[in-house]
């Protein structure tokens, strides 16, 4: 009996799910206190999205607490003002796991993983799966894409800047081109085509040929598995899951499978990685949610250590003697009106992107009449550092948006948790999705992994 069999036999979950959760560090110290019901019927929100603005927020213009636990929307967040009732702002978060590094910055790697970086690797790779990927196990049974990862100006980024981990040491590379994302989601489909409903055309012959090849691959993987043990066998199990996911996509690409009313969006062709590219990435991701192509998404910006440049706002960058966002954050001129204008505009840009998705979600009713998409989606607006010039992982601010249908909300809309561990939020999110866990991540530095829910949230 291996370790999975030994510990999972009494749990109300499959051996496979147990293995995944265990790998993610969720069950490392939790059993038998924790009980995981992830597969026992989905509870809570149906979708999960993260917009991560890696390089930090301009705290001076952030939203703040108002009277009676209300949220006063700051200038940076004006685009989100119409949805203030759907937002909880959490301040005073400490990403303790991120403060253990030779590069003075492990924010992105630890952001959704709460991990120790792998000791098997010289460079920073997460030794645990990320929150979005864990949740994709619950939310991807009936969608062709288990998750969609996008990134703004993330071409050539290294492992230190990736936030989504499908498996330990296996970060997912974000798509940074709207054209490439369109190809992935709607390849060969003309804009305006209705992909949803019973009337969609189905090319059964094409499906049959592709599926035959894919089934052949699975058969051969199983042949190979008979000769293997341990990690190799597990790795091939993941390979089989991948083939099955591709099979779902094949069915969709041949017609059918999308949600009713799923219309192929217009594209702007190849863009220049500027703000329009960012908008297209967000809009296509939004449409993927609306079409029912996925229930999990992440969007992240380059963290800026090398060359993140907001070159469409030169009037704000000329005064610093450097045009890179990273360079500007480290200048001595941060207490100036120019700095205030620049950083506020940067935050407004990203908040504006997020608001496009939130607006669509808020205006789109669920097919089953259970409110809007926003009611049934959980969105995190995150960053990896608080003070970029100090690369500080302490006193960070995040927003939790949507998910009204879950048990997440306490009442107060802006809460300072006073240095509480960042990954307590992950525990709460896991609980909101119906997973009765007390721990998230496997960090063993600076006080260890998160070991309870966020005090700002109800579960």
């Amino acid at each position, binding site marked *: 009996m291996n370790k999975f069999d030994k510990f999972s036999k009494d749990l109300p979950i499959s051996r496979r799910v147990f293995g995944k959760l265990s790998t993610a560090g969720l069950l490392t110290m939790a059993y038998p206190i924790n009980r995981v019901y992830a597969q026992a019927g989905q509870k809570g929100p149906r979708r999960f999205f993260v917009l991560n603005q890696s390089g930090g927020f301009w705290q001076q213009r952030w939203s703040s607490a108002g009277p009676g636990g209300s949220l006063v929307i700051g200038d940076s967040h004006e685009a989100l003002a119409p949805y203030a009732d759907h937002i909880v702002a959490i301040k005073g978060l400490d990403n303790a796991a991120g403060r253990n590094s030779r590069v003075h910055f492990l924010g992105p790697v630890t952001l959704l993983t709460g991990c120790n970086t792998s000791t098997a690797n010289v460079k920073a790779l997460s030794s645990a799966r990320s929150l979005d990927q864990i949740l994709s196990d619950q939310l991807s049974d009936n969608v062709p894409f288990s998750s969609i990862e996008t990134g703004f100006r993330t071409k050539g980024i290294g492992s230190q800047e990736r936030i989504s981990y499908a*498996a330990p040491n296996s970060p997912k590379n974000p798509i940074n081109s709207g054209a490439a994302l369109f190809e992935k989601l709607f390849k060969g489909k003309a804009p305006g085509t209705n992909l949803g409903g019973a009337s969609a055309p189905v090319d059964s012959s094409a499906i049959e*040929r592709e599926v035959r090849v894919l089934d052949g691959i699975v058969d051969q993987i199983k042949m190979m598995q008979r000769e293997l043990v*341990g*990690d190799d066998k597990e790795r091939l199990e993941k390979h089989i899951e991948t083939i099955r996911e591709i099979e779902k996509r094949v069915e969709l690409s041949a017609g059918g499978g999308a949600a009713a009313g799923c219309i192929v969006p217009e594209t702007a062709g190849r863009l220049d990685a500027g703000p329009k590219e960012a908008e297209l990435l967000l809009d296509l991701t939004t449409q993927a949610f609306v079409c029912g192509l996925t229930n999990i998404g992440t969007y992240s910006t380059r963290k800026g250590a090398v060359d993140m440049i907001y070159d469409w706002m030169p009037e704000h960058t000329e005064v610093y003697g450097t045009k890179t966002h990273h360079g500007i954050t480290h200048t001595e001129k941060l207490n100036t009106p120019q700095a205030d204008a620049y950083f506020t505009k940067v935050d407004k840009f990203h908040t504006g992107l997020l608001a496009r998705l939130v607006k669509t979600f808020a205006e789109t009713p669920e097919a089953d009449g259970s409110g809007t998409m926003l009611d049934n989606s959980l969105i995190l607006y995150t960053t990896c550092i608080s003070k970029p010039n100090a690369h500080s992982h302490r*006193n960070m601010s995040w927003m939790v948006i949507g998910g009204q249908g879950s048990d997440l909300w306490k009442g107060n809309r802006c809460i300072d948790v006073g240095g509480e561990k960042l990954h307590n939020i992950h525990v709460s999110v896991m609980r909101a999705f119906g997973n009765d866990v007390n721990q998230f991540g496997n960090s063993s530095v600076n006080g260890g992994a998160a070991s309870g829910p966020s005090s700002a949230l109800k579960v």
Partner: protein
Amino acid sequence: MPRLLYNACIKRGLSNGSFRSLNNLVRTLYLLSLVTFVTHLAGCISAPDTSDPNPSTSIASKIDVGGDAQKGAASWVEHRCNNCHGTNKNQGTSPIDPDNLVHTTYENLVKYIEDDMPKGYGPHTCVGDCAKDTAQYMLYWGTDLVDPGAKVFAKSNLSCSEDATLAHDKLVRLSPIEYVRSLKDLFELDSIPSLDGFPEEELDNGFLYAESVLAETGEGYKAISEAVATAIVSDYASKTACTLNNENCAKTYISNIAERAFRMPVSTELLESVLSVYEAGARESIQEGVHDSLKLIMQSPFFIYKPRLTIGSNASGSSLDQYKNASKLSYLLTGSIPDKDLWADAKAGNLDSDNLLQHAQRLLAQPETREYLSREFIARWFKVKNATAIRDDIEYTALKQQVDDAITFILNTAWGENGSIERLLTEPAVGDSRTNQLTNDPSRVGLLTQPAWMAAFGSSERTEPILRGVFFVEDMLCREVPTFNGDVMFPEPVAGETLRESLKIHRENPICGNCHALFDPMGIAFENYDQYGNLRTHDGGSVIDASGVFPTTDSTYDFKDANDLLNYVANTEELRYCTAKHWMAYAFRKAVPEQLNCELEGLVDSVKGYSGIDQMIIETLKQTAFFGG
């Protein structure tokens, strides 16, 4: 206890506001643990331990910045600083967080102590040496934030267990480069299929890290196999040597391709799996059957996974081992399936150790092999390829040209009778990919001064001496750089200052200096080259000083500039060791596991006499481990 101390301070006239002012000194952010507090109080106030338990290997020497920490510890007590501030990791009632000491400099701290301490409790009696000593003492606190472990190589540092073995041949997936190179050779294509649309693969230790097949990777295989299968079928008679209606010929072609692709005799069950897809497709046409079955072969796990090199027993001589060893050797050196000669010997059962070495020597003499290893082993080790990934500011074609020039430089300095790791690091020349030759350039000193390497370690606006220095000691010399658990304040260039001057906080603050002394000087050594690799003598209007101190195994070496430093390092055993270690990491496709230290130890001895990298490779292949299992 904290409450008692607090009361004591209040009684001495310290206000709450004063406490806050005191805190501004270091901007305290969090309270340290009560347990530590009590522990330290119980031990009273102790002077910092500046002794080095292992001076032969530790180079994390603490930096003296002007004070005497021992006297500072005494002053701390004498002036009752501990009444309010406690001591290291002992917050007192007005805690000083060692984590935040990193944000100040020694001079500022001295000045603050002299001018403002004790706040509201004058007179200010701790001035001059007292303030200097006290500041020195305080700055040592933050050194606890640095994990120990910085070491230079010494064989005595290797932890080697003789009975360490890996259980079995681990599967490893072909890297994208290996995948498309294999397809080219398998189908004898004119060119390597495009990797457009294939996801970027994660790197591990500079080498491709290829394990799980994620959905994007699976889509990549699907797209490439579709393109190749379509190309084969569109030129059916020529590619398959079959007539359009000859079913037996088609099946034979598929069987042969499967054997070459899977790199072993194909079992009946496996062949039936392939042919069943052929049969189904052939109901429409033979070409459709061939097309679909080729797609299956190209996405088959028997094609895209290969056995990883392992530690283990020598080859048993079974026929399967012959095929495995042919595959291992071929992918190790050429990144593709065994060529015809190697394959023929495997099929004939002729691959004993001597024969394998002969094939290795044959392959290593081929220009294609050297170019492949230059790109995939040496250029990745030296991170030259990063240049094309991280820089958007230079036109891509220009940067690609620089990378190709660097590959030319490697090809002309690392391989053959006259090639060596020493030449790679010291040759005064640049590579020219248009002529495939070197051009003499006395301003250059080996690969680390080629423009592509400079571009890989610079941003669009400045050089990155810290990144260059970390590469130098961590990647090139395999030293360990400690981790750091605190927040930091990054210095930025100031007008009129050289970058060296801007980095002075790393020299003046021991918390920074404990680590940065290990690599900053080696990065500053290259400051005579800007972020584009252009030679320069000035930075920020000031003359560049590229000199520094290089910590060696048991001493230090004072160097004048990059030329001096590289010529010194190029002849060290440490570099030979690290070259062997990187080769092992490349061969095993992962960071060298602890179990390989025994092999490394032997390897270092065995490759000492070899200067050529290809000679080193042959020597490592003589180690039975490479063909074990």
